């Protein structure tokens, strides 16, 4: 019983020997594959979210999502306050715009990742979105819209410090795509003290003339 990964009882899961669970990449991959199928069957949103209405989602209604599902968007809305932390603006509207824009850039980035890496990310996101595995594997009890920043941070910290490579890998995947999409965007360059491309070059080069 104690070595069953799908055990719903939180106390039992705590006793689980985590090193024996998902120890190998192969086992992990197979397990994540199963989650994807299960998630699909159980009604998780599995289609790219497409164009969302601005009112309901705070997103730029002109952006067409090509990879992230509505569930994934909710996931990142919960995680970004922990991943970016105090880098996000405090003013509510600016904060919402920063989060929404970062999620759009995450989607645009993943679109260019190609099918193989998209498949890996789909497994990761499904694992996090699917209630049973969100609780047993990520040990996040509330559903994502109800997760506090502290809880999201604790989840990231667990995966960062875990002795299981698969969780470390999940941590890197989530933080890397979020950090790049956030800190790499011109609106947030000031946070890293990056002044942008040298102005004398921008002024002199033809490719900036028509912009």
């Amino acid at each position, binding site marked *: 019983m104690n070595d069953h990964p799908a055990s719903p009882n939180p106390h039992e899961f705590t006793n689980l020997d985590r090193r024996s669970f998902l120890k190998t990449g192969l086992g992990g991959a197979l397990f994540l594959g199963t989650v994807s199928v299960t998630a699909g069957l159980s009604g998780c949103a599995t289609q790219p979210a497409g164009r969302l209405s601005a009112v309901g989602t705070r997103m730029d209604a002109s952006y067409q999502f090509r990879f992230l599902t509505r569930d994934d968007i909710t996931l990142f809305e919960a995680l970004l306050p922990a991943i970016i932390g105090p880098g996000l603006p405090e003013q509510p509207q600016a904060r919402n715009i920063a989060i929404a824009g970062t999620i759009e850039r995450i989607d645009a980035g993943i679109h260019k*990742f190609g099918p193989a890496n998209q498949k890996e990310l789909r497994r990761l996101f499904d694992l996090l979105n699917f209630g049973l595995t969100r609780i047993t594997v990520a040990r996040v009890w509330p559903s994502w819209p109800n997760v506090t920043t502290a809880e999201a941070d604790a989840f990231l910290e667990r995966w960062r410090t875990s002795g299981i*490579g698969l969780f470390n890998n999940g941590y890197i995947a989530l*933080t890397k795509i979020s950090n790049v999409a956030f800190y790499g965007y011109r609106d947030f360059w000031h946070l890293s003290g990056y002044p942008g491309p040298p102005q004398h070059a921008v002024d002199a080069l033809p490719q900036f003339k028509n912009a």
Partner: protein
Amino acid sequence: MSLTDRIAQGLESGWKVTDGASLTDNLTAEADVVVIGTGAGGGTTAEILAKSGLSVILVEEGRLYYQKDFKMDELTSYANLYQEGMSRVTRDGAIAILQGRCVGGSTTVNWTSSFRTPEPTLNYWAEHFGLEALRPDAMAPWFEGREERHSMAPWQMDPNVNNDILRQGCEKLGYSWHIIPRNVKGCWNLGYCGVGCPTNAKQGALLTTIPGALDNNAHLFHSLRADRLVMNQDRIDHLQATAFASDGITPTGIQVTLKARHFVVAASAIGSPGLLLRSDIPDPYGRLGKRSFIHPVNASVAQMPQRVDPFYGAPQSIYSDEFNFRNGVDGPVGYKLEVPPLHPAMSSGVIPGHGEAQLNNMAGLPHMQSVIALLRDGFHPESPGGTVSLRDDGSPVLDYPVTDYLWSGLRNAFHTMAEIQFAAGAEKVRLMHLDSDWYSSLAEAKAAINKLPMEPHRVRLFTAHQMGGCGMGSNPQNSVVNGFGEHHQVGNLSIHDASVFPTSIGANPQLSVYALAARNSARLAQRLG
């Protein structure tokens, strides 16, 4: 835009360039030679063959980007110019792979470091792989020729602070250091080599050999993926290729058939074995995709008291080979020390972390300095390299197990990098490792490095140098091609890229690829002429 850009000018003048995305019907074309890949190897090959009067078709899966597209922006450049939108990793996800995917291949986005193949490497190949004809003396004229073609010379300007700190640290500790030769002409010293040179200073394939080939009637197809070489008895009859839409990644379903007398594969150390595996090219000794090397790279960052502005200035201008061959060619693993440029997207993706800690890491960017160590893999029995194989969808993937031998080299490299950074005056140093903190003294850093678990995923590893997988050698039982890049089993197939290297190089590989491709293309032109 005025027509001062070499590519814009060429397109205007009627170069034969076909964008796969623009094709609406299936197509068949024929030439003397089809060259697959437009990077260091493919560009060189295409120019030399085209100049010798042969008709040449060039095939590139990435798109044609040039000056108008190079706007010093990380997000668009990583998405468009790199393999898998900069998300390529080894099979287990533990090593990030930086590799170009555009016309010019990695030479369009590399940091311009231009080294000859180290002599100990060439001699090792002669002794272990029967490649006597590639001894340093025999290769020297080919290196000279390519140094001239690509305007390679030791960097004349002062190094930027980022690189100068490596110099200062080495100087203090009595370690050797040297100035890096770069392939640039009229360089503005901006610091944006990795996102496509905005000033056309970089003399990579995009602005040298590709235009040279196109001026000589070569036909370039870009946004076209080489799917399969189709054999007829013991020869390759044609290449089957698929076009991508203008996003560069969505297949349009349009099929292109390319026929030729001879085929040159130059699709990189991951792409070339991948293509040959997909094509079921004869491989009687199971060598395809084996012995793949990557110069595994680990890194350390330092917080300096002075401004570093690591995003500006020639990205690489100083290196140290103090530890590269110090234990002999095949002793404990050696490593070359260099410096990477640090822009915000790259840094935030490479430095592991989140939340307030990551914000603090990033806030220090103007004072941040980094050293990288490139391990010279493949020269020792405990460094047999990785394996390229195919995923279910036919795409190639590299499996690269890090052996204890390499882990011990990576730990040594962490020690060296921290030592150099503190010697150069670092206030604190952090290793690129999930468990690393910032350390404010060398003693503290050394104690931590001795304890840090050296495990996949926890140590952040990178590579920008993919080599091997179609290794050359005189004996078909342990190699794929001979010393001229000619396939051992298939008469009209050559391989002209970094996949033929039987070990890693021990230096940034672009000049090694240029030189070997030039030598082997000259021979091929004679054979076919």
